[in-house]
C-alpha cells in the first residue's frame, strides 16, 4: 500500500485535512450522544403500565349544580356503564397511569411521626378495580364489596385494607417482599392498613417519578365533586363505545358535565410527547449533521481533485492505473476519517461525561463508539467516491497541456 506517500503528501497541505477530521470528530460526538439519549428515551417509553392499555379509556365527570347528589350519580353511572354491551368493566377512580396527576402518600412499616415513610401512588378503586385495569394478582385476594368506603374531599380516615404492587412490597420489606402479604403498614403516621393482596405490576400516574412502580390500591369511592370513570371494553370495541359512553353520561344527569374523554393510547402519547418529540428532533439533527459533513467531504475532495488535475494527469502518463488514482483518493479520505473518528471517540466520551454530570443523563453504551467510528468511515468513503472517480478519469494527456 502507498499509505506512506499519501500521508506525507497530506502533511504538506494539512489544513484541509485537519478541518475535515475535526468536522468528523465533532459530528461523531454529537451523533453518539444523541443516539444514547434516544436509546434512553425509547427504553423509558417502552416500560409497561401494567394495565390493559389498548382497551381502556377514561372520562372526567364534574358536578356543579347545588343539588348535585354525587353518591347516587356515581352508583347509577357505574351500574349503567357496567351494563353496556361491549364494556368489560368500569370503575370510578381518582387517577390512572400516565395521567400526570394523582395522590401520593407515605406508608411505613412501624407507626410514628418521626419515621420517614415510603411514598406510593394511591388509586381509589372498588372491587372491580383489578378487572377494569386488567391487573394480575400474585397473592392474596381482591377487595369485597363491603370493604368499599365513601370518602369526602377533606376526610382523613383511611380504609383498613389495601392491595400493593410487588415493587411496593419490595420497598417496604426489602428482606422479605413475599412476606408482605397480611402485614400491617401505617399511613398518616399511625393509621393501620393491612396488605390483603399483592399485584404483579402497575405504574403510578407520574412517568418520570423514580418510584413509578410503587402503587397502592385503596378500597374507596371518592366524593370530591369531580371524578374520573375508567372503562375497559372488549378487544376492538373501544372506539365504538367511547362516543356512546360520552353521550350516555352527558344525557343521564344534567347537574354535571363530562369532559376530557381519552383512550389510554392517547394518554400514553400525551404523556410521552416530550420524549417522542426529543427522539424525532435528535433523529432529524443526526441525519442533517451527517449530510452536512458528507457534503463538506464531497466539496473539499472535488476541489482538491480540480487542483491536482495536472498532477493526476502526470501520474497517469507515468503509468499509474485508473484504479491506483481512485485508491489514492479513497485511502487519503480513509486516513483523514480515521484520525477524525479517533479524536471523535475521545470527544464523545468527554461530552458524555459532561452531560451525565450536568443533566444526569445515562452513560453511553460502549458499543456505540466503535459502531459510530465504522459508520462515519463508511460515510466518508461514500462521499469521496464520486470525486475520486472523476479524478481517476482524468486523461493522461492533461499532463502535456498548459492550463
Amino acid at each position, binding site marked *: 500500500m502507498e499509505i506512506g506517500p499519501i500521508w506525507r503528501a497530506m502533511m504538506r497541505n494539512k489544513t484541509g485535512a485537519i478541518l475535515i477530521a475535526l468536522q468528523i470528530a465533532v459530528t461523531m460526538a*454529537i451523533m453518539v450522544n444523541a443516539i444514547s439519549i434516544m436509546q434512553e428515551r425509547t427504553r423509558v417509553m417502552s416500560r409497561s403500565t401494567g394495565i390493559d392499555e389498548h382497551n381502556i379509556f377514561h372520562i372526567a365527570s*364534574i358536578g*356543579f349544580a347545588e343539588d348535585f347528589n354525587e353518591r347516587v350519580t356515581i352508583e347509577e353511572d357505574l351500574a349503567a356503564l357496567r351494563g353496556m354491551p361491549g364494556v368489560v368493566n368500569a370503575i370510578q377512580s381518582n387517577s390512572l397511569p400516565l395521567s400526570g396527576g394523582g395522590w401520593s402518600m407515605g406508608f411505613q412499616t412501624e407507626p410514628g411521626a418521626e419515621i420517614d415513610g415510603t411514598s406510593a401512588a394511591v388509586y381509589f378503586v372498588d372491587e372491580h378495580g383489578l378487572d377494569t385495569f386488567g391487573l394480575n394478582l400474585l397473592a392474596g385476594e381482591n377487595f369485597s364489596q363491603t370493604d368499599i368506603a365513601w370518602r369526602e374531599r377533606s376526610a382523613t380516615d383511611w380504609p383498613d385494607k389495601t392491595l400493593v404492587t410487588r415493587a411496593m412490597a419490595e420497598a417496604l420489606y426489602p428482606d422479605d417482599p413475599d412476606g408482605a402479604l397480611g402485614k400491617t403498614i401505617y399511613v398518616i403516621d399511625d393509621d393501620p392498613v393491612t396488605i390483603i393482596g399483592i399485584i404483579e405490576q402497575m405504574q403510578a400516574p407520574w412517568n418520570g417519578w423514580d418510584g413509578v412502580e410503587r402503587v397502592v390500591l385503596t378500597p374507596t369511592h371518592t366524593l370530591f365533586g369531580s371524578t374520573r370513570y375508567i372503562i375497559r371494553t372488549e378487544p376492538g370495541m373501544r372506539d365504538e363505545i367511547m362516543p356512546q359512553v360520552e353521550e350516555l353520561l352527558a344525557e343521564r344527569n344534567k347537574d354535571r358535565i363530562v369532559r376530557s374523554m381519552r383512550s389510554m393510547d392517547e394518554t400514553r402519547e400525551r404523556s410521552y410527547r416530550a420524549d417522542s418529540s426529543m427522539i424525532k428532533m435528535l433523529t432529524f439533527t443526526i441525519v442533517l449533521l451527517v449530510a452536512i*459533513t458528507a457534503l463538506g467531504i464531497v466539496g473539499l475532495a472535488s*476541489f482538491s481533485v480540480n487542483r491536482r488535475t495536472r498532477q493526476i494527469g502526470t501520474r497517469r502518463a507515468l503509468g499509474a492505473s485508473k484504479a491506483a488514482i481512485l485508491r489514492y483518493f479513497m485511502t487519503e479520505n480513509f486516513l483523514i476519517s480515521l484520525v477524525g473518528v479517533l479524536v471523535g471517540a475521545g470527544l464523545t466520551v468527554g461530552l458524555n461525561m459532561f452531560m451525565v454530570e450536568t443533566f444526569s443523563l445515562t452513560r453511553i453504551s460502549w458499543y456505540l463508539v466503535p459502531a459510530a467510528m465504522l459508520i462515519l468511515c463508511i460515510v466518508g468513503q461514500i462521499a469521496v467516491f464520486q470525486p475520486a472517480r472523476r479524478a481517476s478519469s482524468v486523461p493522461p494527456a492533461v499532463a502535456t497541456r498548459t492550463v
Partner: protein
Amino acid sequence: MFSYYLKLGWLSIRRNPFLSALMIAAIAVGIGASMTTITVNYLMSSNPIPQKSGSLFYVQLDSWDPNDQGDDGFDLIDQLTYLDAMALMKAGKAYRQIASNRSGLVLEPQGEDERPFSVDTRNTWADFFPMFDLRFQYGSGWDGSADRNLEKVVVLSKEINEKVFGGEDSVGRNLRLNGMDFRVVGVLDTFLPVPKFYDITNGAFNDPEEIYIPFNIAVEYELPRNGNTSCWKPTDGDGFEAFLNSECVWIQFWAELRSEQEKQEYMAFLDAYVEQQKELGRFPKPLNNQLSDVMEFMESQEVVEDDAQVMLGLSLMFLAVCLLNTIGLLLAKFLGKSGDIGLRRALGASRSSLFIQHMIESAMIGLGGGIVGLGLAWLGLRGIEMLFGDYIENMVGMDWVMVLTAVGLAIMSALLAGLYPTWRASRIAPASQLKTQ
C-alpha cells in the same frame, strides 16, 4: 471601494455556484438549528414582567416535615399553608401582597341550549391586578373592600369574554359559576406571560387562567382546588375547616417591595412571624425563609428544561460543524483563486485591501446563510410546535431580537470562518503565482 469589493465578492460567489451554495447551505442549516433552540431557550428563560421583576418577591417559608429526608426532590417547599398565607395577608406588611391558587369551576352560559363547560380559574386578591401590571379592556380589578366583604365579583380574560359575551363590554353582567351568580367587574386585555411566573408550581408554561375570583369567596364556599396540594402532617379531624388549619401547602404568595430597605424589613417581619409560630409548636425545621424576585425564583425552580438545554448545546456544536465545513470550503475557494490574487498583488493591491475584500466576500456568504437560516429556524419552530402541540405554543414565536440575533450570528460565524482562509489568501506572494503561469 466597498461597492467594488461587493461586486468582486458577488462575481467570485457566482464563479463556483456549487461551492458557494454548499457554504450558504451549511451556514443556513447551522444557523437554523441553533436559532430554533436558542429561541426556545430564550423564551423559556425570558423575563415575563421586565418592568418590575426586581420588586416582585415570591415568599417561601419552611413549614415542612423535619423527618423528610428530601427524597421528594425539593430543598424548600414552594407553597404556603392557609394559616401562614392568611397571617401574611392580614399583617399587610408589604406595599402589595397576594395569596393565590389555581382552581376550576363550571360555567353555565345564559342561553338555554348552551351546555355548561369547565373553566380554569384563579383565586386571588385585589392587589393581583395592579401588582402584575395587568391591563384591562373593560372595567378594572376589584378593590380591597370586595375581598373583605365577600363580594361575588369576577375578572374575565379577553378570551373567555369573547366566548361568553361575544367580546362586548360585559362589566356589570352576571356570570354563573358552580351554581352561584357573580358580577363581572373587569375584562383583561391580552395577558400571556411566558413563563407563567406567578404559578410555577402548576406548570411554568401553562396558559393563564380564564377567570379570576376573590380568594375569600373560594374559601367561604369551599370551591374546588385543582392546583398542587402537598401535606406532611395528619390533619386534626375531618372537614374543610380542619384542612384550612392543617400543614398542607397549596397557596402561592407574592409581595411587592419597592426598595432594598422594604425587602429587608419584610424579611425581618417574616423571620419574626416564623419565630412566633415556632413558639406555638409549628415550623419544626430551622428558620429558612426566602424572598426571591421573579428571575431568582424561576432560576431556583429550574424553569428552563434540561431537554431544551441539551438541544441548545447539541445545536451549537452542530453550528460548529457547519463552520468547520465553511472554513474548509472557503480555504479551498480562496486558494483556488491564487492566480487572481497574485495578479492583483503584483498590480499593487495591498495585503490589507485583499484581506478586506475577502472578508467582505465571507460576510456576503454569511448574510445569505443568515437569511436562509432564518427561514429554516422559522420552519424548525413550526416543527417543534407540531411535535409538542399546545404544550409549547407560547414558546415558538420569534421577535425582532431573535431575527437580528440570527442574522448577526450568521454574519459573525461567516466572518469567523473566513478569517483563516482570508489570512492565507492575503499571504499569497505575487511572484510565485505569476511564475507558474
